[in-house]
Each structure stands twice: as structure tokens, then as C-alpha cells.
């Protein structure tokens, strides 16, 4: 396993300065090399906090992130080398690049900070190689970000992440800010790089179509918890958790025949404030299948019907197996 996350918790203090709440609550999963885990969920589900924990931009409150079998700890000597194994690509490439630096300088800076190029000419060669790897010409290195299109900027963002030769990329909505006619180019690039460099992806997106295209497994998050996880086809086409079903129905697909009649089918309610989650199952106030037990007892994530589900009702339908880690 290249990444193993066990019982990860991240606490934040509520804005009113009072109590602490879990933005990521007891999340566990494993990723094998070359595999892609899609993470879906709405505002406040904790997917962005999880991304920042994975790349070390935030420190966990408890739980363990292991990379290549070694736990990522705050004080260790080789922390930097270990953390380098996981890199992030951001949603908005314009905001993620320094507008005053030429693209080549942005990449050279990364190489020099991590001492990855012996001299000027080696850095030069590597910058050209990185740009070509993401489908740009070496000559793009002399351009400023504002001289590039949105798709080209995102390619630079990917090149920067690849500069340190990571094993894992955390892709946080990598095509959502791009024009629709450009998204396929960047998705194809990501798929190609995954094959070529044997990369492992955590692909965070609200676009279920793109998640379907690229993911081997999918985890659905709601208010900091994984509520369902499993093989992409099981989770997306035969969801067991009521929230996954509602989400799958809510996201419109580009197929008028399949969409007929869906317009007036509405799930009530909004995502509660993550700082004040409801008792019991956090989804119960919006759940069409709610039962008395859901209001008091939080369901555990258990394997049932071939995937992990945290739902009392779904678990009762089949005999669950106790296996809290949604791995393989």
C-alpha cells in the first residue's frame, strides 16, 4: 500500500471560539500504487480538509497517515522526503501560480528548494522535460501565467506537482474551473500520466461523470465522515447509502432521456453546519429512510453487499461484516 490512512481525525475550533468539532471524523482508507480513489461530497463534507491532511498542509488531530509503509510524523528527520511523495493539484490554477514568476522559474524554484537539480543546465533540461510531459512546449517556460489559457495554467500546476517525482497526486477539483471544451484534454493528460509514471490519485470532484471516468474506487463523504465506499461501479450505479442515492439523482447527466421526470424529484434540507452535527447518524435529518435508531446511534462503516456503508437501514438489509477499513 502506498498510502494507508487510519482513523484520521481533524478538529477545528468553531468560529464562535467555543467548542471543537471534527472536520474529518475517523476516516480510514488504503491506496495501492497505480490506483485512483474518487472522493465525492458537498460543502462541509471534509474533502478539502482531507486533501490538505494528505499533503501535509494540515496536521491531523489524531490518527495516522502512512506513506510507503512509514507513518508521517511531525518530528521525524526524513519528513520532508516522505511528504514529498504526495503532491497536490489545486482547483484554480490561476490562484495557485505566482503571477510574477515565469513558468520556467516556478518549476526551477521547486527543483532548487528540494535540491533536485545539480546545476543550471540540469535544471534547464528537467524544466523542459516537465513541460513536455504535460503537453506544453519547452518555450512555454518563458511565459508568465497571464499569458497562458486556463488549460495551460492547469498543465503547469500539474508539472509543478510532478517536479518532485511524487508517487501520489491529490487532485482537488482539477478541471472544475476550466472551460467545458478544455476539461477532456486535462482529464486525458491525467489518465496518461497515471499510466506512464504509475501514479496513484486521490481525485476529489463534484462532477460524478469525471469521477466515473477515472476512479477505481469511490468514497462518498458527508459531514466529515465516509458514508459509503467501494468499487466505482457499485457505489455510483447501485448506491446503498441514502445520501449517495440522493446525490446521484441530484447531479444532472447530459442525457435528456435519462433526465426526464427528474426535475421535480427533490431531496429536502441542506447540509447542516459541520460545527454542530446532528446526533446519531449525521444524515438523519435529511434521510427519507430515517428510523428511531438513526436519531440516537451513529452507524459504523461496515462492509455490506460488496462495499462499506455507514447506514443502519442498509446494514440491516444484509448481514454486515466487521471491516472498518474500506480497502481491498
Amino acid at each position, binding site marked *: 500500500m502506498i498510502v494507508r490512512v487510519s482513523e484520521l481525525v481533524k478538529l477545528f475550533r468553531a468560529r464562535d471560539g467555543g467548542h471543537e468539532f471534527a472536520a474529518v471524523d475517523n476516516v480510514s482508507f488504503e491506496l495501492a500504487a497505480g490506483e485512483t480513489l474518487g472522493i465525492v461530497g458537498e460543502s462541509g463534507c471534509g474533502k478539502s480538509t482531507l486533501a490538505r491532511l494528505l499533503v501535509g498542509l494540515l496536521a491531523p488531530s489524531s490518527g495516522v497517515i502512512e506513506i510507503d509503509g512509514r507513518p508521517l510524523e511531525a518530528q521525524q528527520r526524513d519528513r520532508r522526503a516522505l511528504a514529498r511523495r504526495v503532491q497536490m493539484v489545486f482547483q484554480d490554477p490561476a490562484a495557485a501560480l505566482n503571477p510574477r514568476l515565469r513558468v520556467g522559474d516556478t518549476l526551477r524554484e521547486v527543483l532548487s528548494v528540494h535540491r533536485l537539480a545539480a546545476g543550471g543546465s540540469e535544471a534547464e533540461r528537467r524544466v523542459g522535460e516537465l513541460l513536455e510531459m504535460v503537453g506544453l512546449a519547452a518555450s512555454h517556460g518563458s511565459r508568465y501565467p497571464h499569458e497562458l489559457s486556463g488549460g495551460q495554467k492547469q498543465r503547469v500546476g500539474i508539472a509543478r506537482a510532478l517536479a518532485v517525482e511524487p508517487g501520489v497526486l491529490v487532485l482537488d477539483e482539477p478541471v472544475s474551473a476550466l472551460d467545458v*471544451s478544455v476539461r*477532456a484534454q486535462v482529464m486525458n493528460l491525467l489518465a496518461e500520466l497515471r499510466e506512464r509514471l504509475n501514479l496513484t490519485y486521490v481525485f476529489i470532484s463534484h462532477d460524478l461523470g469525471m469521477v466515473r471516468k477515472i476512479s477505481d474506487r469511490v468514497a462518498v463523504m458527508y459531514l466529515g465522515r465516509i458514508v459509503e465506499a467501494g468499487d466505482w461501479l457499485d457505489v455510483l450505479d447501485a448506491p446503498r447509502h441514502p445520501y449517495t442515492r440522493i446525490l446521484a439523482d441530484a447531479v*444532472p447527466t447530459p442525457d435528456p432521456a435519462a433526465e426526464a421526470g427528474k426535475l421535480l424529484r427533490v431531496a429536502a434540507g441542506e447540509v447542516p453546519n459541520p460545527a454542530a452535527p446532528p446526533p446519531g447518524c449525521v444524515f438523519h435529518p435529511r434521510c427519507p429512510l430515517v428510523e428511531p435508531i438513526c436519531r440516537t446511534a451513529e452507524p459504523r462503516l461496515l462492509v455490506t453487499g460488496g462495499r462499506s456503508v455507514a447506514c443502519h437501514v442498509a446494514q440491516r438489509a444484509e448481514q454486515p461484516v466487521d471491516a472498518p477499513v474500506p480497502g481491498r
Partner: protein
Amino acid sequence: MNGAGQPILLEIDALHVAAESRHRATPIVRGVTVSVREGETVCIVGETGSGKSMTMLAVMGLLPSPPMRVTSGAIRLRGRDLLQLGERELRSIRGREVAMIYQDPMSSLNPLLRVGEQVAEALEAHGVPRGEAYERTLELLGRVGIADPPRSAKSFPHEFSGGMRQRVMIGMALALSPRLLIADEPTTALDATIQQQIMALVRRMQDESGMTVVWITHDLGVVARLAQRVVVMYAGQVVEVGSVRRIFEAPEHPYTKGLLASLPRTTAERTRAPLAQIPGSPPEPASISAGCAFAPRCAHAFARCLEEAPPLEPRADGAAACWLGPGGTAP
């Protein structure tokens, strides 16, 4: 109501809008012609810089001017050219006949004013007597699905979620029962389940009143769920028009075809094959090439496409602007 056979409500005729500076005028909307029938739901699809928002802001008489200015064309609402009206007449049309909702409701709400007060103020501005305005406000908030209207009316906009703010905007837009609602990406910033609530709310309001809806979006899923008719825009022009079924099942324009082909399939089998991609990116308004604006990205472009812009010509169940003949065959 599906609009077919109904009279035309809105007619945009050869509209040109330019961004003007001291030294030059950059064309943003380049000869857009669209007509919308009473009771219809039309989706305008396009990417950044396609001119979709500017076209509809021109209908509202709300172009950000300067630098934007209508340079030629006509916009007729029930036959009356809105471009010939003065600001006073326009103001009475906005709200009563045409209303608009936007992507970011926060920018249209006054952060310092309680929600109920600003809805009531808007009603009063349109002649609802002061005594009635607050009562009407509470009724409106209830209609758009805001829980506990008397209490919610006393909240400030920042105390509301994005979805609730958009509900307030819809309530205000529909307060005077306009004939036409223009929705400019009102759900783009919202989560999927909230987007679905907002789309259903607008449809319910439409079913109650027979209102016409023009919905601007870049999301082809939203189009498939919502639209009866689709207008596809690219680089300031309409490149294709058609019924929603025809656009998705038999697109005529290479841009529409390319967009639809680039979307991931929703079928159970999945191939590792790459998505079909359109090369390049949409042009900046200042650097749109002569001839067909899509030609530099089009796999089928030939000499004529680079020299002469194709006109929008009738095709089965709509129209397309492409030198290739019907079905994409060479002329």
C-alpha cells in the same frame, strides 16, 4: 407548457455588443438572433467569453456600461423594442415583465439590511403600498421555501446559506409575476442537492404562472434536465439552436458535437480509451479569427471556413451556423 405554437415573447435580432475603450471597440456579442416563445424554457449554453451573459444583460438594459455598449440590433419584448426605451420605462419593465437572477446572490443583496426589509423595499419600489409590502414579503418567502418566514425575514443575508439567498432572490424576482425570468448560472456556486432544489423551485413557479424562462449555463447536464430548447453560443455568436432532444441526439455543429463527445459516458461499461477532446481553447474576444470563429479548433474546417463566417441557417428542428451541410456532410 412547452411553448410550441405560442406567440413569441422575446425577440433578439442581430444584436451586437462591444467593449469600448478610448482606442478600440472589441466585439463581445456578434450578431445574435434568438427568439423565445411564451411559456418556453430555453437554455443558453456557452463557455467563458461566449457572450451568453452579455446578451441577456442587454435584454435587461443592465450592461456594465462603460465599457459595454449595444452597437446595433434590436431586442423586442412582445413587439416593443427595449433598446428604444428610456431608463424610466425600462425600470418599470424590469421586475414587472422581465426579472433576472444571478450566480452570486450575495452581490445583489445589501449585507446591512435585514432580508425582509429589502424584499419589502423592492416591492414598494414597484408600487406595492407600504402597509401591504411586509405581509407580501412573508408570503413570498414562504412560497420559495424559506422556513419560518417571520423569523427569517429578520435575518441578515450573511446568516443565510447560498441556497437560501438564491431562494430570496427568486422570491424578489417573482414578486411582481414577470412574464420572463432570466437566470444567469444561478446554481453554479451551489452544491448538487441545492442546485436541484433551486431548479425544481423555478419549474414549480413556472408551472403555476406560465412564466417563460431563459437559463444561462455551461453545464450540459443542467441543460438536459431543464431545457425544452437549446441555444449554443461560441465566441459571441449563436452556432446552433434546436430542441433539447435534437441537440443531444443529433447535434449539427462541430462545436456542439465536440462538446457532447468530450463528456464521460454514464454507461456501466467503461473503457480506458481517452475522452474525445477538442483541441485548443476558446478564443479571447480580441483575437477572434476571421471566418468561422470555431475553425481553428475544428477537425472539419476547410478553406471557406477560414475566410467567411457561416450564417445561421435552418436545420431539422432548429438551425446551425456551419459550412458543412445538414448532418455534417461536405457541401
